[in-house]
């Protein structure tokens, strides 16, 4: 199967990446090239094979529920695009 321009627009929206109309067409062709390449995976019989999520089988470690970080808000916010009074600024979300 191959992607249509509408599919590309939908994926771009899910990815939060703006694509112009011209970019959409070239992106469709490139993505279809890559999808064509990974299509060969479909032919492999994987019945009964356990998916491998990680290279090494380990269980999630737990740690005591205690404070481990100090307050470094000012330092972290120094690299933010826009802050005010210790808050991150974004366009209005709720009217």
């Amino acid at each position: 199967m191959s992607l249509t321009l509408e599919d590309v627009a939908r994926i771009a929206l899910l990815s939060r990446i703006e694509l112009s109309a011209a970019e959409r067409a070239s992106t469709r062709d490139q993505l279809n090239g890559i999808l064509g390449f990974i299509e060969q995976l479909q032919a492999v019989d994987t019945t009964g094979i356990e998916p491998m999520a990680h290279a090494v089988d380990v269980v999630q470690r737990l740690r005591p529920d205690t404070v481990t970080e100090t307050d470094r808000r000012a330092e972290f916010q120094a690299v933010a695009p826009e802050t005010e009074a210790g808050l991150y600024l974004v366009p209005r979300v709720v009217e």
Partner: protein
Amino acid sequence: MSELINSSLRDLSAALAARRVSAVELATLFLDRIDRLNPGLNAFIALDRDKTLAQARAADESLKVGGGATALTGIPLAHKDIFCTRGWRTSCGSKMLENFVSPYDAHVVEKLAAAGMVTLGKLNMDEFAMGSSNETSHFGPVKNPWDVSCVPGGSSGGSAAAIAARLTPAATGTDTGGSIRQPAALCGLTGLKPTYGAVSRYGMIAFASSLDQAGPMAKSAEDCALLLNAMAGFDPRDSTSLERPAEDYARDLEQPLAGLRIGLPKEFFGDGMDPDVRAAVEAALGEYHRLGATTVEVQLPNSGLSVPAYYVIAPAEASSNLSRFDGVRYGYRAPEYADLTEMYSRSRAQGFGAEVKRRILIGTYVLSHGYYDAYYLQAQKIRRLIAADFVEAFKNCDVIMGPTSPSVAFAFGAKSADPVQMYLSDIYTISTNLAGLPGMSLPCGFGSNAMPVGLQIIGNWFGEAKMLTVAHQYQKATDWHTRMPEALK
């Protein structure tokens, strides 16, 4: 003094300990070389002489006092720009992080600094480590010091070029699908990707978290062993960091190779490899026979599926990891937008380059409703088949060998028009990442246009020390790893 650019880390350490050279003199030697040669190579993308020299002065102090000094104290190195380095711009090769000065150090940066190493600067790389040629960097491509019309490989291309040009004795790299080994091969260096989980990922900007692993790049296996000793170790801040007793990766370097069984996967010696690469690899295998090793054919029947499986799994994980770049807490924010969604989508459209966007889109698609089972789950099942092949193969051999890359360094632009052609540059390295195995590349001769060829060694899980011994013994018998580009001498 200038001959020190070719010295091993052990020799530098001895010279520093005997006070034949100071850490400040050594750092200055390399910084001056960087000033002179980097404009033609574009390997370094952040330098700060004051910061470097302050660190060098501190190293000289501890060398003078003695007590706190390690075997690496006072030796300069440089970090791939994927490692968060406190007070340094950490860009990951992206416009997205062009102005990001990290408020903290990666675990690896912390550990190497604690060992007394002196940071020369930050190294160029493919954007977010996505690339095999360094052409995707926002800061322009790195040039291969052996021939500046050729790529250095990627994504750790800045690391590789800097060492090959002797702008630094050592560097850090990261390897998700071959990003340490392939540039090491293309630039004539030694580089090692450890077993997944051996080195902490904390502070290393994430690309594909189940595959990403940091490792050392240097001139020789012995240098890599000393660096890995300082880099590896458990870190509770990385949820997949392995709790294992510390090991000395240099402990067996002088063990002879008699009786070593080298597995040669027939899938790695098929038609895909260029004849010049084949000739150099086969000559290296001949040298191993002389050193007392035997070779045995092994099979990795599913290795042909590793590149397509990787191009499902890695973009899927990347699409999730890179969702953090939203223009809110750090990174680039577009100048104009009408609402929050547009702020996100414009910041990401303008802040990411073409290859990164492509991979986020592919990753989003393969994880999306209705396609997850067909692509992502299927790729994870194939990943298990690939790992199981290695388990079988290692029943009959101690290490596996083959080419690192199917060709020597290629010209700029040669593969950039077709993403799939570029992806196939990593055909011999990717299966190692999928299985979580350690792998390394070491120089084994020169191919067409006198460009370096890399021999790949794949070790069993936690077989780093064995792999390093196998590489070191070869390097004692050969001198490929001591060669440097004539023009830069």
